[in-house]
């Protein structure tokens, strides 16, 4: 379970994130939506202890992330291309991550088998380093890398962006399957409302650093969200 208390992040006088309380129980597929600059990536970075909170804390299973490193056993993430090692081939990258998560070469190979379809034959044995792959293929490598080694919590920042339509569908199925079968907790941010409502069972909307909506997904959710963002547009003058 992820627990957030009085969490805020301030740069100078600008507060970019301020969340009083948020709890994410195990097994939840948690969607984070909001416009650019709403604080989505800031929130994920705070959860991963990549930036320091101004006040408050994030704790994962009762361990504050900035005090102990024990959470690293449970969490994996793909936020952006700084999570990729450009000079490795995709296979080497998977072995590297796998070995650090207690797998070996053979078990990583076994794990990768079902993904041949997902990779569309362009990634494994392509004879390319990750730095030379296209943006979309890099993203696929990063996402699959985050799944290796059975992490309990997987954080994905904008996983649908840059992916082709078929892969978006495959990714949605993958997320659903992992959360149903293995009880993996997913934290996903996205600009795509329909994808998010389809895979997530809870959706939180942030705006200018504040938590403005917290919805358990139901058939009306997509409409609600579309309405909310449409209102945002009409409120602010274009």
């Amino acid at each position, binding site marked *: 379970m992820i627990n957030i208390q009085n969490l805020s992040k301030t740069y100078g006088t600008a507060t970019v994130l301020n969340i009083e309380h948020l709890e994410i129980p195990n097994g939840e597929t948690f969607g984070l939506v909001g416009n650019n600059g709403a604080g989505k990536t800031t929130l994920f970075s705070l959860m991963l*202890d*990549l930036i320091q909170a101004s006040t408050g804390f994030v704790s994962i299973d009762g361990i504050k992330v900035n005090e102990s490193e024990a959470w*690293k*056993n449970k969490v994996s993430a793909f936020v952006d291309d700084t999570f990729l090692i450009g000079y490795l*081939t995709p296979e080497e990258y998977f072995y590297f991550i796998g070995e*650090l998560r207690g797998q070996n070469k053979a078990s990583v190979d076994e794990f990768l088998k079902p993904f041949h379809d997902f990779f569309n034959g362009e990634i494994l044995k392509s004879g390319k*380093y990750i730095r*030379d792959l296209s943006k979309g293929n890099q993203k696929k490598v990063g996402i699959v890398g985050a799944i290796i080694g059975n992490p309990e919590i997987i954080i994905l920042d904008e996983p649908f962006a840059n992916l082709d339509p078929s892969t978006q569908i495959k990714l949605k199925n993958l997320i659903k399957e992992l959360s149903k079968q293995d009880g993996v907790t997913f934290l996903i941010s996205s600009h795509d409302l329909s994808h998010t409502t389809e895979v997530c069972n809870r959706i939180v909307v942030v705006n200018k650093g504040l938590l403005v909506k917290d919805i358990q997904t139901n058939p009306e959710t997509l409409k609600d969200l579309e309405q909310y963002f449409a209102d945002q547009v009409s409120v602010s003058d274009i």
Partner: protein
Amino acid sequence: MFLKFLRLEIKSFFRGTSLGINLTMKILRFIGILYFIGCLIGGAFLAFFYIQEEMHQNPLKMVSKFMIVAWIIDLAIKYLWQEVPTQNIKPFLTMNIRKNTLVNYMLAKTFLSAFSWLTSLFFITFSLIALFNGYSIIGILVWLIGVIALLYLNNFINIFFNGKEPLAIAIGICFVIIGSLGYYNIIPVLSYSESVFLSFYEKPYFALIPVILFVLLWWICFRYLRKEFYLDQGLEAKKTVGKTENIAFLNKYGVIGTFINNDVKMLRRNKVTKGILLGSVMFLFYGLLMFTSSLYKTPAMMMFMGLFVTGGFQFLFGQRVPAFDSSYYPLMMTLNVPYKEYLKAKWWLMNIVTGASIIVALCYAYFGWEVYVTFFAAGLYNMGVNSQFTLWSGAFNKTQIDLNSKEKRLGQKGSFNMVAILLLIPKMLLPMGVFALAKYFTGITGGVVSIAIIGVIGFFMREKIFDIIVKQYKREKYSALDAFKNKG
């Protein structure tokens, strides 16, 4: 149009790397550039007056004589470090600018690189001095134009060579052969150079040759680039075929083995790290300096050389330890590996290479066993003590390193910091002092043993020291993550 481009260049120069660098750094960088300029201008004065007053030779003749050497070195430097600026041309491709203009812009851009204009400073200053000392105005002017045209010719030659390694190596070998023929006076290369370059001064119309060559090569280069001015041809960033490989026996060592495996790949596959490897090999020859001056034969200096001979890789690699991982530091910080293991892997890698250097340094036994045992003790000190200190100073080095780009802007070296300089005391001065004193009082055995003992103590204290370093790294974690985001 070119004025607009020039304005962009100026902006990129002042803005590109200044992100994340504070004012002191900027001032230091500025001083660094001034220092270089000063060196070159001072060098011109020195060259002129030393040759004239001390050697009683004609300075122009002398400089002309060694011009061929300067020209080859210039070409080599440009080939090794200067990259054809293909990448930042991309945004202009779809703008309302004629392609011919863009190609010329790209060619002109190579002249703005520090490698190009710094050498010109030397020759301009030199010519000015010559003018004030009674050389003919036209002669000197023409000589200068000829020399600079020839040096700038290298920019074009470099463009042809780029990515054609076999050709470059073949030409390199030719140069070495010609050089040795000249060295052993089989072919008087230097006097050929003298007569060719001096003829620019004596018979000004000869200088037309380099100018014509310059214009001709510009034209050929222009045609060459214009034909390939497409994203998937000339403008494509060079890709190498990726090969999945693995040093299997390292897998036995768990996380540390995994990390070392990864670092070996990093060192082999990136341009910046290849430079580090080359530098480390050069340091092995550092001990040969002892033949240049008796100054190096004192015990303290012998120790100094020993530290560099055995620790070249360690110094170059260790102080960039988190910086080399800067492009994927967030990944490193979220993987389930304790900091200590990460650092230990780096420590082992450095010490394996230091160990290998100690073995290679056996060649120095040729100059006497005393030299070698000194170097051997220095190696032990490097392994036991300096490996930790170097990692420590690395924590303060927060320069984002783009692993796969060749060219660095002048003065971009952000690794300068107070801590790194303070750490030089235990790293260099302490062993030098101890060795000199112990040798003075108890002879060579005492000196070597005392250094070795300190090294071994450091080696066994490593767990304790690691804990301190880990604390330091944790304290610097957030600011390092933030600084690494600023791409150069």
